[in-house]
């Protein structure tokens, strides 16, 4: 297969995923913002697949599609659907966070505008920058979802990433792999150009937003359908945690061990420990870098690292290992360092708009009164944007816990992380190992839901406009 075909397939899958995710997420976001009591819970559910390792989503979807995956357009369609399932909820949260202020809508109404006119001429133009930035994020994720492409495409859907992997690891042909990796980078850059044309700017990705004034049937139906599909995927994981191996209790208590016949290099609990340690380091780095970037003229380019394929990272790690001592390249801190590359853009998206919204007058006044830099930071800036910072910390924590691609290349042996261990347990026959994998996945999903949901109770009293923070 020629490189051009690979480029076209990869670009098509990524763009189609982004367009469909936006088309679905936009009306669902309107529905979401019209919810009252259930809004927090529903947002939590909608965000969970965004944070799940892709192989779990693939495993849940495969049985549903069965032999239909043999047809190549069905396989491509199912990959796009999986991307949409993972990202549409995220788009909905973005839409809900960027709703037009109610007084503007009411003013439009008074002037005789219809609902469609309001959406088209008033709301959409205001939301377009946020939506295209989020759409860019989805396109970047969808161009780098190797595991999902192999699982749902069954190896017959070829993308740049699958060919990089098979050139580097099966044919041991590093020059070809390197050339394809360059193409992958070129594709990422062209996505940025397109997003820039659409006027994308990093805008509040999560926020309280205004409540929608009207409910739409379409948004409601799509929203309920999306929530249903997500619950179905999660339910499949829970059901297997119950039915496989030693049953739920047995599977969970087995997590303290190393799997049936000790097939793991470490216990699942130890793997969780590694994941938590990596998470703390990666989140701290990302928050500090995002904070630093948020006052600088950093635009869309901050999102760039999300477009770096984990397969490309693996390739670079492989080549570097030829020149760097393994004591160095094999250190546990390499993974959180690389993860913070992907997490910084997420943290930036949440922190920067809030920090920029702060009035510089307050800071200047304090400075005139003799406040030191440390006092400015500790007493004024940090408390003011505390909630977005906590929200950014939570989202990056979950993204770090669920990160699979870079970890699979950079965390070996006793340094393996929770998602790697889930996958490893599934790579040996036997119901006991599968049951443990699903029990570990269930715990992961439960923790993710709990964190997203409990964060929604943090109120924003001090932030200007009340339009920042992860909530819901």
């Amino acid at each position, binding site marked *: 297969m020629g490189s051009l075909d690979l480029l076209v397939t990869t670009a098509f899958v990524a763009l189609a995923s982004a367009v469909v995710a936006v088309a679905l997420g936009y009306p669902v976001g309107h529905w979401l913002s019209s919810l009252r009591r259930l809004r927090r819970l529903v947002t939590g559910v909608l965000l969970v697949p965004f944070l799940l390792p892709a192989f779990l989503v693939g495993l849940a979807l495969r049985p549903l599609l069965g032999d239909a995956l043999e047809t190549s357009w069905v396989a491509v369609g199912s990959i796009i659907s999986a991307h949409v399932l993972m990202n549409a909820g995220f788009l909905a949260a973005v839409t809900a966070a960027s709703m037009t202020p109610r007084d503007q809508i009411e003013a439009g109404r008074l002037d005789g505008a219809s609902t469609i006119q309001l959406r088209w001429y008033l709301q959409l133009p205001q939301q377009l920058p946020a939506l295209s930035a989020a759409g860019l994020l989805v396109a970047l994720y969808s161009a780098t979802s190797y595991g999902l492409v192999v*699982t749902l495409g069954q190896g017959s859907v070829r993308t740049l990433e699958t060919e990089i992997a098979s050139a580097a690891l*099966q044919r*041991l042909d590093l020059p070809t792999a390197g050339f394809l990796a360059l193409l992958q980078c070129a594709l990422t850059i062209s996505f940025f150009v397109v997003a820039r044309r659409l006027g994308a700017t990093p805008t509040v990705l999560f926020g309280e937003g205004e409540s929608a004034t009207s409910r739409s049937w379409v948004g409601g139906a799509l929203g309920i359908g999306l929530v249903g599909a997500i619950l179905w995927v999660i339910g499949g994981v829970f059901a297997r945690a119950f039915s496989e191996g030693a049953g739920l209790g047995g599977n969970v208590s087995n997590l303290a061990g190393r799997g049936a016949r000790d*097939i793991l290099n470490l216990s699942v609990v130890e793997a969780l420990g590694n994941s938590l340690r990596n998470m703390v380091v990666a989140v701290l780095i990302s928050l500090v870098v995002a904070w630093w970037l948020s006052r600088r003229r950093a635009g869309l380019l901050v999102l760039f690292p999300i477009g770096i394929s984990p397969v490309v990272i693996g390739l670079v790690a492989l080549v570097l290992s030829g020149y760097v001592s393994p*004591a160095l390249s094999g250190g546990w801190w390499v993974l959180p360092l690389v993860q913070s590359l992907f997490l910084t853009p997420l943290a930036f998206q949440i922190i920067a708009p809030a920090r920029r919204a702060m009035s510089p007058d307050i800071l200047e006044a304090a400075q005139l009164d003799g406040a030191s830099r440390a006092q400015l930071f500790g007493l004024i800036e940090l408390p003011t944007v505390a909630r977005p910072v906590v929200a950014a910390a939570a989202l990056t924590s979950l993204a770090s816990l669920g990160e699979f691609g870079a970890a699979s290349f950079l965390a070996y042996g006793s340094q393996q992380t929770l998602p790697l261990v889930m996958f490893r347990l599934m790579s040996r*026959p036997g119901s006991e190992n599968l049951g443990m994998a699903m029990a570990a996945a269930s715990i992961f999903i439960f923790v993710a839901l709990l964190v997203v949901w409990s964060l929604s109770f943090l109120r924003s009293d001090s932030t200007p406009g009340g339009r920042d923070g992860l909530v819901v």
Partner: protein
Amino acid sequence: MKTIALSAITLMALTGCQTPENTLVRLAAHDSFVIGEELVAQFESETGYELEILRLGDTGSLTNQLVLTKNAPVADAFFGIDNTFLGRAESEGVLAGQASAIDYSDVCFNYDVEWFAQESLTPPQSWRELVNEDYRNLTVITNPNFSSPGLAFLASTHAAFDEAAEVESFWIALEANGVKVAGSWEDAYFSDFTRYGGNHPIVLSYASSPAAEVLEDGSSGSEALRVECFRQTEYAGVIEGSANESGAAALVKFLLSPEFQASVPEAMYVYPAVPGIEIPELWAAFAKPATSTIGEGLDINANREQWLGDWSAVFDG
């Protein structure tokens, strides 16, 4: 990418490189390598060496890294390059002397015993029968481009037939008989195999897999088709130009010892390569190795690209 390279280089400069002492033996292994703590202790007390294990990804990635680092070896010994990659390691001059076979596993089809009993269908005896009408739409294999059992089965077909045309017509017939191709072993086994809720009662796996599928009443849930299987043999050896060649040789000798050999079935789902080692009871009953194997004489390294290209022409075309 630049950021990663730069930070790695900076950090390298900051920390400096570790110089191994003569008592240190470094083993480069793939990620599936498992050795018990008591065995490590035994090796260290018997030989006076200290063992350090580096895990370098899967077999392909391990081989690649040893080739890339051959001028400044990262380890003294390696474990886990198999017969599909050994030719590459040899031709690149990674090995000092001969590699020693440590363990093997047989890539065989497994079938769901209960499913065939319920359907009153006679299970196949060999993979050659999978093109028969009786077994239409029943089989799932893995894509040889991404999966090592898939490549092993592709190699089996090249070993089994004399002419390339016969191999091609077998694959065309298999495709026409509705064989399903999964992206990975995990997908095939835990998603397509009938024992895990799929609708294919015949799955490409290993001769040892049935040991993990013993039912509560003690009967076997699955069985392997044990003829004409492909034997994947994993090797260990001393790395050319390493800092501690004598320590590496002592380690390879230890990997061939009865104590380590007896541990490999449970630890890695493979059979000991040294003859005369007793295998666990469960394995003796449910996971016997293949009765016949083929493909040992193939030059996989030289043919891989051609075979994968021909295979893809049948399935992707």
